[in-house]
C-alpha cells in the first residue's frame, strides 16, 4: 500500500506535465478541428466535418504528403546509411577517433534556423554562393530553387545536419559489442567487410530499429529548415504538413483548418511509427 502511494506521488509531476502540455492540447485541437475558428478569436462556431472535407479536397495536402515521403526516403538512405557507414569506419580507427566523432557531431549543435539561412544564401540567385562558383567557371547564374527542385534542396541540409546525431548513436551501440566476438572472428580470418555485415550490423539491430523510428518520426517534426529556406514555396512545392499547418494557423489565421491538419499529422505519424515498428521488430521464434 505504502509503495503504491509513492508510486503515484513520483508519477504525479510527469503525469500533470503530460496532461497539461500533451493530452489536454491534443483534445482541444480535436475539438477545434470541428469548429470554424478565425483570427484566434475567443468565439468559435461548430463547423462539423467542413475542415476535414476541405482537407480532403486540398491539393496542397497531397503535395505535403508526397514531400514528407520524399524527405523520409532521403533521410532514410542518407542519414541512416551514411551515419552507419561512417560509424563502422570510424570505430575501426584509433588515432583520429575523438576528433572525427566531434567533427561529425558539430552540425547538431548549430541551430536549424542558422543552417537554413546559410543554405538560403548558398542557393540565392543574386548573391548566392553556388551562382558565384558557377560564374567563376564561366557559367551563368541559375535559379536553383524552383517548383521541381525545392523539396530536394531543402532535404540536403536536413540530411547533413542529422548524420552526426545518428552516427554517435551507432558508435555507442557498437561500443557495447563484446570485443571477444570480433577477436575470435579475426582469428578465423574474417575480413573487415564481413565483420561489418555478419557481426556489427546484426549485433546493433535494436539500435538500427530505434534510429529508423527516430528518423521517420523526425520527418514529421521538420519545420524550421523548410520555413527559412523556401517558406513552403514556390507554389507550395516544398510544403510539408508542418509548414502547411503553421501557414494555416499563423499566416491565414484559420485555427480550425490548422487543427484539422494537426490531427491528420498526429494520426499519420502514429500509424507510420506503428507500421515501422511492426516491420522492423524481430519476430519471436520458439
Amino acid at each position, binding site marked *: 500500500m505504502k509503495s503504491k502511494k509513492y508510486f503515484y506521488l513520483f508519477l504525479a509531476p510527469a503525469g500533470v506535465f503530460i496532461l497539461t502540455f500533451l493530452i489536454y492540447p491534443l483534445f482541444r485541437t480535436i475539438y477545434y478541428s470541428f469548429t*470554424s475558428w*478565425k*483570427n*484566434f*478569436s*475567443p*468565439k468559435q462556431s461548430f463547423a462539423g466535418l467542413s475542415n476535414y472535407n476541405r482537407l480532403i479536397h486540398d491539393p496542397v495536402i497531397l503535395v505535403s504528403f508526397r514531400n514528407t515521403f520524399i524527405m523520409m526516403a532521403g533521410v532514410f538512405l542518407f542519414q541512416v546509411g551514411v551515419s552507419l557507414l561512417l560509424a563502422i569506419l570510424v570505430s575501426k580507427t584509433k588515432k583520429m577517433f575523438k576528433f572525427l566523432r566531434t567533427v561529425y557531431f558539430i552540425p547538431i549543435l548549430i541551430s536549424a534556423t542558422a543552417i537554413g539561412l546559410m543554405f538560403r544564401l548558398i542557393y*540565392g*540567385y*543574386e548573391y548566392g554562393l553556388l551562382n558565384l562558383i558557377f560564374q567563376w567557371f564561366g557559367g551563368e*547564374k541559375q*535559379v536553383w*530553387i*524552383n*517548383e521541381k527542385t525545392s523539396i530536394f534542396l531543402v532535404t540536403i541540409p536536413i540530411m547533413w545536419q542529422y548524420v552526426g546525431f545518428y552516427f554517435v548513436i551507432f558508435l555507442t551501440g557498437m561500443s557495447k559489442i563484446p570485443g571477444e566476438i570480433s577477436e575470435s572472428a579475426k582469428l578465423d580470418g574474417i575480413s573487415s567487410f564481413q565483420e561489418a555485415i555478419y557481426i556489427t550490423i546484426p549485433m546493433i539491430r535494436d539500435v538500427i530499429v530505434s534510429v529508423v523510428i527516430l528518423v521517420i518520426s523526425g520527418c514529421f517534426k521538420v519545420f524550421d529548415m523548410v520555413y*527559412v529556406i*523556401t*517558406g513552403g*514555396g*514556390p*507554389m*507550395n512545392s516544398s510544403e510539408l504538413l508542418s509548414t502547411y499547418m503553421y501557414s494555416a494557423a*499563423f*499566416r*491565414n*489565421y*484559420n485555427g480550425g483548418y490548422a487543427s484539422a491538419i494537426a490531427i491528420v499529422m498526429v494520426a499519420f505519424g502514429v500509424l507510420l511509427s506503428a507500421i515501422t515498428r511492426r516491420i522492423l521488430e524481430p519476430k519471436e521464434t520458439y
Partner: protein
Amino acid sequence: MKKEMKKFLAAALICAMSIGLLSGCAGKSDSGSGESADASKTQEEASAPEQTGSAAEQQAPEETQADDEGTIRVVTFFAGSDQWAPVYKEVIDDYMAAHPGVTIVDESQPTSGTQDLFRTKIQSDVAAKTPPDLMLYYNGEESKMPLDSELFVDLKPYMDADPQWSANLKEGAMEAGRSEDGMQYCIPYIGYFEGMFYNKELFDKYDLAEPTSWENIEACIDTFVENDIVPFATSLMKPSYMVEQLILAQVGAEGQKDYFDDSWAPALAAMKDLYDKGAFPADCMTMTEDDIRVLFADGKAAMMINGSWTVAGLKDNENMRMITMPALPGGKGGSDVALSGFGSGWYMSKEAAERDDVTLHFLKYMTSPEVMTRMIAVGGSSAITCDAPEGASPLEVSANEMLNTATKFVPACDSQVVREAWLNMTEPGIQYIATGQTSPEEILAQSRSLNEE
C-alpha cells in the same frame, strides 16, 4: 539532562520562528496597507479621467506623481528593420528618463520580411487573455480579433475628458479607428501611402519616358530586360503591394470595394502578362520583401511598388521618385486615386485602464504633436496635428505631390477582407496565375468563397 537540553533548544527554535513569522506578517501588513492606499488613490483618479491629462500635468505635476510609477507592456511593429524602430526606442527612452518611476517593457516585434512575428505575438497574447497594456495594431477587418476579445477599452470617454489632448487628433483620421456603433476602439497613428517608386536615373540613361502611363511602362520593359535591368523589383512570394496597386489602377476607388469581384481579373492578368515579358526578377518566386528592396536600392531594378515605410531607406538617393500606378488600359484608376490610409492605431487594455493612469499618460505622450513630428520625420503621414519635418528629399517631395494630386484616398484592401481570402489570392495565388496553372477568375472565386465564410 541531554533530553531536557534538546527540548529547550526545540522550544527556543519554535519561539524564534514564530517571532520571525509574526514580524514578517506585520511588515507585510504595513506595506500591504500602503499599497492598498495607493491603489485606492489611483482608482479614484481612474474613475475621474477628467482630472487627469496633459493640462493637469502642466498645472499640478505633484498630483500626477502616483501616475508616474508603474510598468507598462507595450507591443508595436516598430522593431527589427522597421524604419521607425530607432526613433521609437529614443522616444521611449526619453519618456522613461523624464518619468523615472515608469518602466516600459517594449515587446515590439517586426511585421515585415518573411516572418510576421508581430501578428503572431498579438494574436497569441490576446488568445491567452494577457493583452499588452498598450498595443499598436491594425484596424479595419483585423480589428475584429481585439474587439471580439472584449479586452480593450473604448477610448472615446478618455478623449472627451481631455479636450486639449484630443483636439490634436485629426477627426478624418480617427474615423478609421471607429466601430459602427461609434466606439473609438483605437487611435489611428501613422498613416501609410503606397505607390510606384521609380529610379529616374535609369529612365534617363536609356532615354525612356518616365512611367506615368501604362503605355510608357510597357514601352520600357523590353529595353530594361535587354540591358539586364529588372523592370519591376517584385517578389511573387509577397506580391500584395503590387496586386493592390494594379487592382486600384484597374477598377478605381469604388470598384476596389467589390472584394474579389471578377472585375479584378484584368489586374491579376496584368501580373501574368508582366511575368511573361520578363518584367520581374529571375528569382521572383522565392525572393523576400527585403531582397526586392535591396535590388531596387542598388539600382538593379527600375521600378518597385511599395509603401511609405520604404521612403526612409531610399530618400538619400536623389533619383528616386514616387507616383501612383497609372491606370491599366480601360481602367478607372490613375493619379486621382491614392492608396493611403491609417491602417493601425493604439489600443489600450481594460486591465491597464482600470489599474491606473500610467498607460493613458504614455498613450497621450505617444500621440502628442512633439512625438508625432519625430515619428513622421522618418516616414508616413500623421493622424495628429503636428509640425511638418524640414528638409524634404526629392522622393518625399514627389510622394507629397502624389498625395496632393489625388482627390480620392482609399485604404489598402488587404486589411478590409478576411486575411485567408487575401493571401489565397496573392500568396501563392499570383504564382499559379503567372505560371498559367490557374486563371484569375478561378482564384477570385476561391477567395470570394473564403471571404464570405
